[in-house]
């Protein structure tokens, strides 16, 4: 069972996601059966990314404000802008 609790933004820059994992046996957390062909080291590197299925990662985030405005005009939608010091998607 994997429980994902999401946290959006803070006064600092990193987008943080909390994942509580209760894994009973099987592959390391975050490693799917198709990834199991990887070496142990490869699986280890893959498994650190525990929040692959987090809801925020299903959002089609745009990273170019002008391109997003053009898409918003076409789709007749407002813009929801997540602006931080450091990029919200990482690379803070």
């Amino acid at each position: 069972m994997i429980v994902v609790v999401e946290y959006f933004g803070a006064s600092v820059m990193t987008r943080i996601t909390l994942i509580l994992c209760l894994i009973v046996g099987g592959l390391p957390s975050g490693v799917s059966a198709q990834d199991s062909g990887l070496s142990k080291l490869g699986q280890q590197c893959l498994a650190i990314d525990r929040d692959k299925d987090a809801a925020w990662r299903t959002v089609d985030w745009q990273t170019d404000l002008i391109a997003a405005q053009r898409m918003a005009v076409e789709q007749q939608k407002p813009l929801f802008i997540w602006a931080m010091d450091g990029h919200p998607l990482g690379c803070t």
Partner: protein
Amino acid sequence: MSVSLDQWYTRRQQDTEGEFWRKIAAQGPRKEAGQTQQGLYLVGVDGQLLAYTNNRGPERVRGLLEQAARDYAHPVDAKPLERQSTDAKYQVALPEGAVVVRVQARVDGGYTPTDDRWESLFQSAVSRDNLWITAEEQGALAQGTVPEALAVRILRFHLVDNTRGEPPVWSREEIREWSLTIENGKLVGSAHLETEDGSRGYQATLQGELAFGQDQQLQQCHIWVEGQFWGSGPFTRNPPPGKFPLVIAFRLADGSEPADSLAPHGSRGWLPGYLRP
């Protein structure tokens, strides 16, 4: 339409995107372009600010989005913006032939247990940054040599604790000892990074597996770093007490995530300083 951006860049850009951003931010509580304008903005396509919050609670964010769905009236004369100019100073592009490697870090224990909701989130966070490896460096790696610029780039900018916010990177002087070599096709190494006053440091080992295509382009990259970290920076406060285990994983990006296209944190403001540290 959801947009995420680093307003450190946007508020400085002297171009179409920067102008549009400043128009939006000037309507919010953080009008001064010289200071942070971070937050969550709900904006019409004409740049009219509809709502703003910098509250961290998901309830507030959900309320903002529900308000948009309820109240938004799309301007009948809305026009798509034309990009008239691009400020080259803030356009950090991946060098031709370079590859992107995802870098993720996690504190693997040592925190004082907490009942605080927010603190517990930080304690279990996994960070994300990108490492750029140039075409020339891939060629050297394929020949069994780790270029010093690449090694120092990894040490200075990527062996950091960025799990609680924007981290301080290491200066060259803070690299006390290091080794990074390729032996029998495997990457092996160690690092001792420490500030002059000893208040922050990281002692770690590195191991990795690399694979290349016929053109010597990196096709597989797995690097695992583990060691003891101590201390924090102005934006990474409340680390575990004393020394604590920090693990960092590197793996090749496949372009499937929006974050794969972002410039590395260490390149902010000066890409040459990142590529040739």
